[in-house]
């Protein structure tokens, strides 16, 4: 077998085609490098957007309401079908209905040293949408104190604006949590007073939240307004920058915190860039495969007479194919391994660099990159095999 291969090697020498071989290998390498980089780029991009370490917990909750325009003035409630439709969207993980209070209320302080009074309204939301972890966040009829969650925004507004203008002391979160407020609810039969207490602060929903159980009880007992439909919902999403989400909100004339979704525009641009790099890589790869297949054909054509004589003398197509595959396929394996190593090095360096910018990607190659490399190994094998097969058949009578 060895002797046979050695003689064949001497017959089908590629000395004259060496430059062609080098060019074909270079073309294929560049194309593979591009396509593997494109795949890895997609994986990194996915990593950056969806991995836990890069996520911002606030940004994943969006409070959505209708855009208030002259056309829908006074009618900004969300219908049950609209909410159901929202729930069905792939980019929405969960929808929580924000229930507004249907009674007039105010809070005031018990202390005369620190007089405080304001009209207020409450909202409630299912517990799953709340990011304050407190054992006090529960209420049953008969309970003395109503727990509340206040937006950080309120406290900031008080500390850095209101207190200064009114010559009032600034309050820390801890101090506020210790204050017991008086909560007055206006009922047809007069004012009902309860006690209230802030148990936590949140950035997620910018309204004063009370437990759902309290809201239900209070609305049932003291609600004077009609059983209104909700006009705001909170949605949980994996990716508030998702262009599909932004488009959906726009199409349905809904609005949300623009800051959180602003990223979607950049996302779209990056998406296009990444796609273009993928398409370019794909086209280049096609050309590289063409070059390689032409190279094989040319090499075989350049020793056409020798192959013809070998066939004449009785060399079997299988023998020739085996030899030619042996000669032309191994460079492909080396090219793939080589490009994988290069992409791996680049990936590692990029990961290190991004780490300094607090962006975290996997320093190792993604499984998709490996899978793509394997896939192309298979494609190259098929191209090699079919080219050789076609040529050998041509040489046979």
């Amino acid at each position, binding site marked *: 077998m060895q002797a*046979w291969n050695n003689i064949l090697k001497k017959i089908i020498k590629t000395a004259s085609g060496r430059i062609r071989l080098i060019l074909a290998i270079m073309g294929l390498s560049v194309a593979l490098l591009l396509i593997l980089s494109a795949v890895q780029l997609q994986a990194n991009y996915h990593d950056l957007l969806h991995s836990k370490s890069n996520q911002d917990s606030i940004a994943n909750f969006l409070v959505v309401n209708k855009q208030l325009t002259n056309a829908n003035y006074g009618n900004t409630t969300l219908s049950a079908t609209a909410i159901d439709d929202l729930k069905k969207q792939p980019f929405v993980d969960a929808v929580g209905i924000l229930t507004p209070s249907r009674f007039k209320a105010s809070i005031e302080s018990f202390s005369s040293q620190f007089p405080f009074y304001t009209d207020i309204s409450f909202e409630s939301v299912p517990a799953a949408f709340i990011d304050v972890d407190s054992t006090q966040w529960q209420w049953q009829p008969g309970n003395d104190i109503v727990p509340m969650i206040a937006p950080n925004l309120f406290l900031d507004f008080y500390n850095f604006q209101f207190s200064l203008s009114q010559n009032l002391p600034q309050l820390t979160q801890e101090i506020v949590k210790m204050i017991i407020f008086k909560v007055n609810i206006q009922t047809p039969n007069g004012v009902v007073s309860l006690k209230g207490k802030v148990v936590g602060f949140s950035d997620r929903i910018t309204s004063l939240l009370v437990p759902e159980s309290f809201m239900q009880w209070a609305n049932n007992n003291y609600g004077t307004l009609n059983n209104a439909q909700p006009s705001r919902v909170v949605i949980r999403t994996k990716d508030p920058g998702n262009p599909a989400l932004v488009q959906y909100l726009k199409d349905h004339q809904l609005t949300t915190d623009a800051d959180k979704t602003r990223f979607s525009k950049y996302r779209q641009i990056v998406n296009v860039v990444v796609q273009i790099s993928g398409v370019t890589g794909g086209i280049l790869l096609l050309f590289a495969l063409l070059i390689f297949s032409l190279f094989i054909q040319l090499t075989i054509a350049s020793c056409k007479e020798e192959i013809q004589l070998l066939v004449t003398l*009785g*060399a079997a197509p299988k023998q020739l194919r085996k030899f030619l595959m042996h000669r032309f396929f191994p460079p492909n394996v080396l090219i793939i391994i080589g490009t994988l190593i290069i992409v791996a090095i680049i990936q590692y360096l990029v990961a290190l660099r991004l780490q300094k910018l607090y962006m975290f990607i996997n320093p190792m190659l993604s499984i998709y990159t490996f899978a793509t490399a394997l896939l192309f190994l298979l494609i190259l094998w098929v191209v090699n095999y079919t080219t050789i097969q076609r040529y050998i058949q041509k040489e046979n*009578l």
Partner: protein
Amino acid sequence: MQLQIQQVVPIPLKPNLLNRQSDIWLKGITFLPGTRVKIKAASGTGKTTFIHFLYHLRNDYEGNIFWGDTDIQNFTPAQLAQHRQQKISIVFQDLRLFPNLTARENIELKRVMQQPLYPESTIKEMAEQLGITKILHQRAGICSYGEQQRIAIIRALMQPFEWLLMDEPFSHLDQENTRKAAALITEECNKRNAGFILTDLDDDHYFTYHQNLVL
């Protein structure tokens, strides 16, 4: 394996051959295994063409040629190769050596193309017998035609066969070398119980022929 030809006539030569007497063209002939056949033919009567038909190098003919029971037109490339490795060997008139391989490599190629019949040392023994030991390491392309002819003969004898086709195999050999080559061929055919078909321009007495035909 017997060889059989039925009403074969080369298409390009058909008009010329129709008015000529021939033992082969447009006849039905069966060559039984082990038969030694001499085909005498004048120049231009299609001697090489006939050998090429018989070896299935060309198929521009009418009629049928059978190797065993199979019409050679029906062989797949793999079957054809299998027969050329195991059952039918050939010495071409134009020799068809690889000019860039050495004499030894040209012979070795046919030895190792299939499961070797002979050890490598046989190449040397045969080369000695035919007096070409000295040129075994030379490129075949720079050997004299007579030397190349002997290389081609040894190459044909390296493989197993039931039939050996020879197209003017001694055209460039002197009488002494022809005698040696014929002796070697006879010996190898005897070992295999193989037959041969030899074409030449004139009568000769190199072998004891079972059949003498005129093309």
